[in-house]
């Protein structure tokens, strides 16, 4: 069974000593672990073996975690085709799974397999050693059946790293202090925000979500408040434009010179070598994604700048909304969720992740709380039953504590 879930099993996995000594961690192949195959499931990194640990891996080792092996993932982290990180948890093969979240992958994978998925604040956990396509949005996501384990893992991996130029030292101090403090208690008043008309502009269904919110509202001390996020329905387009441009640019490193697949075709010069090697390296979803990025880079760069302006307003708007509420709640999905590779187009991909990508655009922490999942549940149903909470940046500890409270309410344990 292990070999169906792990693409690589660490034969010498053994726990050390420290705060994570009882924790087995599954790591997807987009996160560098020294001497492990690290191909991010792409031919562009065929046979690539990482030369050194990602910073966050070093920190996990130092805290005593046992690194179990590699789970399968979507190519270069885009989507969930063939993903097995949730299985590693539900089959009891690991306690925590790490999965890069650039569009909502970690939260969605968690929702589908019935566990918690957390995307920390952008800039809290170092990105050095992570391989994905969208540098300005990528975060190391954490999946587990236990919010406490997620909290410990986040705290272990967080902190300034000189190898990551996009960290925020002041924010990190605040976030790490949050883990040290006792945090919000179960009895504190809690204001939960719901985005006004989030479903109508996107043509989505909100029946199940309404029921869940109603249930949350019955609990003592919780108030529901409607907030406005300007252009919420544009977030998807904005993410698509910015994401593809960053992907087209960052995938430039996959040039078949230093690593990865080199074409076997006879080529006259290096331009032909690039064109063939890269053309053979990427699957259809990534390739279409890169072509879109090329379009915005070379044919309509103003669209990229406009998207960045709208992103700036989304950030400001969400920050303002989070001044009046403690967190915002949204479903993990509300419309179509692509279940198979056959329909794996860029727009199908964005249909699936249309509600999770806001937190990636704005860098806020977000945690998904699973709904009831039984063996017969389809991925789509599981995702539509799950909720995600979005909290203020660098209050990761507070968000996880509140998630625990809301999860208890939803499962009737309060």
């Amino acid at each position: 069974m292990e070999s169906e879930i792990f693409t690589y099993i660490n034969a010498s996995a053994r726990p050390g000593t420290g705060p994570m000594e009882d924790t087995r961690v599954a790591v997807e192949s987009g996160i560098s672990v020294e001497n492990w195959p690290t191909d991010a499931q792409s031919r562009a990194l065929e046979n690539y073996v990482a030369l050194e640990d990602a910073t966050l891996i070093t920190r996990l080792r130092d805290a005593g975690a046992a690194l179990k092996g590699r789970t399968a993932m979507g190519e270069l982290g885009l989507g969930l085709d063939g993903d097995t990180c949730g299985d590693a948890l539900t089959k009891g093969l690991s306690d925590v799974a790490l999965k890069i979240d650039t569009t909502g992958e970690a939260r969605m994978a968690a929702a589908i397999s019935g566990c918690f998925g957390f995307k920390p604040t952008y800039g809290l956990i170092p990105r050095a050693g992570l391989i994905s396509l969208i540098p300005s949005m990528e975060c190391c996501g954490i999946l587990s059946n236990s919010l406490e384990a997620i909290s410990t893992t986040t705290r272990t991996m967080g902190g300034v790293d000189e190898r990551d130029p996009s960290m925020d030292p002041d924010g990190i101090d605040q976030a790490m202090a949050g883990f040290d403090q006792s945090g919000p208690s179960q009895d504190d008043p809690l204001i939960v925000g719901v985005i006004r008309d989030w479903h109508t502009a996107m043509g989505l269904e909100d029946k199940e979500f309404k029921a869940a919110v109603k249930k949350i509202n019955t609990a003592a001390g919780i108030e529901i408040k409607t907030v406005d996020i300007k252009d919420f329905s544009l977030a998807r387009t904005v993410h698509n434009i910015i994401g593809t441009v960053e992907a087209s640019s960052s995938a430039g490193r996959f040039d078949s010179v230093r690593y990865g697949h080199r074409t076997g075709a006879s080529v006259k010069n290096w331009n032909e070598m690039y064109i063939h090697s890269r053309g053979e390296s990427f699957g259809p979803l990534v390739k279409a994604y890169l072509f879109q990025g090329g379009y915005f880079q070379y044919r309509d760069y103003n669209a990229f700048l406009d998207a960045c302006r709208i992103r700036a307003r989304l950030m400001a708007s969400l920050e303002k909304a989070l001044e009046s509420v403690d967190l915002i709640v949204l479903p993990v999905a509300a419309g179509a969720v692509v279940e198979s590779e056959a329909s794996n187009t860029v727009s199908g991909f964005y249909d699936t992740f249309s509600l999770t990508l806001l937190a990636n655009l704005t860098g806020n922490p977000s945690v998904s709380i699973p709904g009831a999942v039984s063996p017969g549940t389809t991925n789509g149903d599981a995702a539509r039953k799950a909720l995600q909470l979005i909290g203020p940046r660098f209050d990761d500890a507070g968000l996880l504590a509140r998630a625990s409270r809301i999860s208890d309410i939803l499962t009737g344990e309060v």
Partner: protein
Amino acid sequence: MQYNDRSNCGRLGPADIGKTVHLAGWVDALRDHGEVLFVHLRDKSGIAQLVFSPEFAPEDVYRQSTTLRNEYCINAVGRVVKRDKGTENPNIETGDIEVVITEMTILSRSKTLPFPVSEKAMVDNEEETISRETVSEDLRLQYRYLDLRRPGMQQFLIKRHKINSCVRAFLEQNEFIEVETPVLTRSTPEGARDYLVPSRVNPKHFYALPQSPQLFKQLLMVAGFERYYQITRCFRDEDLRANRQPEFTQLDLEASFIDESFIFGLIEELLCRMFEVGGTTLPRPFPHMTWQEAMDKTGSDRPDLRFEMYFVEATDIFTHTQYSIFKQILQRGGVIKGINVKQASDSLSKNVLQNEYAKQIVPSFGAKGMTWMRVTGDRLDSNIVQFFSDREQRVIIDRFNAVDGDVILIIADPSLEVVNSALGRLRLHVADRLDMIPKDLFKPVWVTDFPLFEYTENGVTSSHHPFTAPDRTDFDPADTEDLLSLLSRSYDIVVNGEELGGGSIRIHDPATQQKVFSALGLSPEEAKEKFGFFLQALDFGPPPHGGLALGMDRVVAMILKTPSIREVTAFPKNRSAFCPLTEAPSQVAQEQLEELGLLDLVKSEALPGSNREQEDIDYLSWVSRLGFEEEERPMIESALKNAAQMAQAVSGIAPDFEPAISVVQGQNCFRQGTSAARSSFVKTGDLFKNAPSVKGDYFKVASILD
């Protein structure tokens, strides 16, 4: 302080000891010895060491000196003294003296430099702090004014100026006059792509920037100036190649009542004088080689004569061969040629010959394969030699003059062009690899007697340009065979395998010109449409004339032995034809386009049904260096359609916010330590562990140039 009594840093010497001097320039380097501060002050002439010490400098001057940083521009007065024994600096001309400063003004300050400017170490035995090669070229081009502050770069431009002066003086002496010709001119569809300039006054009409002043200089001959020259900028919109610039400088010249020998003599003398500026004496007289001989011997019309290893014709040896590959090639009218790499069997192992050359390198030169033979004990040794008869083996050894230790490389192909081109590149590759090319040797050669026409599927085309005179005028413009047998009166000057210039004797007879156009398939009407103004001039008594153009950037780069013409160009473009300094080319305002009538032009000229999407995919595939299979086209097409819709959706509704590139402000990260160090992965070799192809200490890639 005033500047009229200023001395030059680099010209101070022992004769100045005891004098008070006034200097101005830039802080090249600093060395703080606690109490005493040493400063290298640099101006155009060189470097002098300044000493700031509390003992001699007034307190405020000394205090101010401690705020000096690299590349501050300062003014200083001090006394020249002899340096203490043992503290002399042989790295600089003025290393025996130093200047003890008593007055100093900071004229302007400098920010932290993007790369070091200083080239001279402050003390003996210290390594040079920076080599130009370690700084990214785009960064150097972006801060070109700092890059040009470096003495090495200044020397290049100063020498280039001296070469120009030498050219002007020499041509003046020979009664040439410099005449300027227009830069805004007419587009001629011949040759490379033109740079176009839209005309506002004549909407929808365009000027072209000249690829050369060819027709104008011929018109100057018609006008009777007899001897003209110009050092002028020319423009070609060509694809990326190393050592090419979209704009380049030519020495263009033309003379009347002359023949080839005049040009040969003039240019030989001129080039010799130009190379003397760089301290190189060219061997004279320059030899001549016909185009045919150059092709036969080296497979190239730009023969590199610094080494021999000339081609050996071997087709006839194999007329009756049993070796099936050669047999088939010969049945298809093919050619077999080879080279003898003398005494190379130690450096060219069987493995290198078979796995590198035969399987990879030669196929990348366009030939299907290569046959190799090593000579040992007077016999041939190879993976295929058993297919050759004893007679064939013996004749091969004889024909190639082979002795023990030699390696014979043979290329066979149905096409002579393929054999010449592949074997020619192989000859250069092997010579380079085995260090057979002597350094600092210059081998000029005139290549002459080019074919006037080249064969194409649609008839013939000019090898040079249609104004080049043929060697005879009695040809039949309709007889392709006759046309292909014509030689032209053109000549190229080639040095070390590089074409530095070329030219020809021109046609001055309208009837011959008409015949050449007719041979090229141009009717009198079409010729008139394209070159009417010029043909008309030929009807008014043109003198016999001819000329030549030298690519000055290349000549100067060769004289100064720089790796690239960008080193001898003050403000060059990078390899993407982009200027990192000014960020040209740039987008322009909608209004500018409108004023030029260009918006309208695109609309009205776009053909109905033209497939912009198809173009988009192929264009994006190229600029992204991302290939695709035909079956992927519909999927990509639909993704691009989707992208266009998204662009539409965000257009015009974005708020007036600063675009958010990231949610976290990027931080500058500085690596620990002060000196550049190799990554430990380089030392251990691990860096190459994941590489698809490695050779020695390098990542191996397909060849960079075509």
